[in-house]
């Protein structure tokens, strides 16, 4: 075994805290049954942020419209349950497939141009979908949202209850499955190629990597995972509304990811926990102006330097 493969193996090996985190996730289902609904939201947000991490943290694509795929997943899951069959797992598969197909289609749009072009195009796609969902009210219910969605029991026996325990277990299972998949992906040669092209596209291309092919692939995977997150939201709440496409959601998920840190997969989970806690705290205190504090937080975060947030030991101490 050469030094390089050894190095890569070591990089890909499991750390103790990764096991600990997974254990905490599982235990949270057992120990906090009364908070299952909130935890469910956190887990969905974490999954959504995970999908953004794949394209932002690993492939370096700045997207302002990631909610597009989240929304596609939510609406296709809800519509499938309403019009075809209520089984959640089949619905999930359909939603993921739709989102992936749409992601593959959209990935063509992000191959060219600068960061600005990419921002615009992703933002534009999300806006188009928003308009579409708004205008096609015979199908989507328009601004009222898609109502009357009944989701069948999970695996034919576990009903989605009001307390949200089934929902949280379901979400947790999907989250962990996606996490493992993403982990496998980023530690494969494909993942390393992504990081290479994030750092320098031109160089990555000139050592023989097919940059575009990889971008298409990672964008499709990220769209699929975002679709799964959207489907989870629709299925566990039995509702899909226009706000899944809103700009707010795209901005929020970016913030979540940035709080947790980009480019190491778990940022989404930590970020989602912190974000939801912050949200609950601030909303309890001043419900209407939560956005102001969110904005202030963003501004300060960037001014201080977002890489410092997860490294408290750099907060104080002499500047170099």
């Amino acid at each position: 075994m050469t030094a390089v493969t050894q190095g890569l193996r070591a990089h890909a090996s499991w750390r103790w805290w990764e096991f600990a985190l997974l254990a905490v996730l599982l235990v949270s289902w057992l120990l906090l049954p009364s908070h299952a609904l909130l935890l469910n939201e956190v887990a969905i947000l974490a999954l959504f942020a995970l999908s953004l991490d794949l394209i932002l943290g690993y492939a370096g694509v700045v997207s302002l419209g990631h909610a597009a795929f989240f929304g596609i997943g939510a609406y296709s899951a809800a519509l499938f349950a309403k019009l075809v069959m209520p089984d959640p797992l089949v619905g999930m598969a359909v939603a993921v497939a739709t989102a992936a197909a749409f992601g593959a289609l959209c990935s063509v749009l992000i191959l060219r141009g600068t960061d600005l072009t990419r921002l615009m195009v992703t933002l534009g796609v999300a806006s188009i979908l928003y308009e579409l969902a708004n205008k096609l009210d015979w199908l989507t219910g328009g601004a009222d949202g898609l109502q009357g969605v009944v989701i069948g029991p999970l695996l034919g026996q576990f009903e989605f209850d009001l307390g949200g325990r089934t929902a949280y277990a379901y979400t947790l299972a999907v989250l962990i499955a996606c996490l493992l998949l993403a982990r496998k992906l980023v530690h494969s040669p494909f993942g390393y190629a992504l990081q290479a092209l994030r750092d320098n596209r031109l160089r990555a291309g000139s050592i023989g990597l097919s940059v575009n092919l990889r971008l298409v692939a990672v964008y499709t995977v990220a769209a699929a995972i975002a679709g799964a997150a959207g489907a989870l939201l629709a299925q566990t709440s039995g509702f899909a509304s226009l706000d899944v496409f809103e700009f707010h959601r795209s901005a929020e998920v970016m913030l979540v990811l940035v709080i947790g840190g980009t480019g190491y997969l778990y940022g989404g989970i930590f970020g989602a926990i912190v974000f939801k806690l912050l949200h609950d705290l601030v909303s309890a205190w001043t419900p209407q102006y939560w956005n102001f504090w969110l904005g202030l937080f963003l501004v300060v975060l960037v001014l201080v330097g977002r890489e410092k947030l997860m490294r408290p030991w750099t907060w104080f101490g002499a500047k170099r």
Partner: protein
Amino acid sequence: MLTLLFDGIAYGMLMFVLAVGLAVTLGLMNFINLAHGAFAMAGGYITVLAMNRLGVPFLLCLPLAFVGTALLGALLEPTLYRRMYAKPHLDQVLFSIGLVFMAVAGVDYFVGSMQQNIQLPEWLKGRFDIAWVGIGKYRSFIIVVCGVLTVVLQWVLANTRFGSQLRASVDDPRVAGGLGLNVNRIFLLTFAVGSGLAGLGGALGAEVLGLDPTFPLKFMIYFLIVVSVGGTTTLTGPLLAALLLGIADVAGKYYVPKLGAFIVYTLMIVILLIRPQGLFARAGGGK
């Protein structure tokens, strides 16, 4: 039909004035400022508040809006924005989204979330007919004001000392600095003027576009379209892009109201697909 075209042009001119400051920050400082709409909103609110609460006449409000937002820009540029120029685009996006959220919530807190109305002076209301084409007075007023502004801007950029300094800084800030230009001061001044123009646009547009605290979010994408489609290297690029946008939007909403804002977004995506650097970018530009 011609009325529609006229409205589209007025709308486009308005968009141009609103977005031209953004084109400058983007082209000059390579800074993605999503908070540009917040300056426009500030201008709009200055006008509304000055008119409704203090009884300042409309024509006086316009320069007031310009000066007010320019001062705001001049205040924010050295304190906040200047630190952002060298940061990665992700940071800039986060930062300016943060500013937008703060502006939206702040205005909501101080003024309230309802739609604000502007009482136009009598002589700007109504419409007149030229050869059976109905033309709104206010819309022609907008076209005249924005047209004059465009010509002045173009003249300043092309014929004055400051214009050539600015162009030098756009092309290469480092070399411009090396030649003894105070690039920071030029940035500051340009940013202030750009913000002021946005504020003026917001004041003019309060009647046409509507004004409420979500203004910066609603129109953010429009400003960005103008800039990204038009390119940031010339003034004519964004101008033509803004006109195209205005006409497409007005015509689209009139002929196919079901599709709404669709046409504009689709048009933008298609254009950016074919020409990622914008429609009118100079060939071989460095950025």
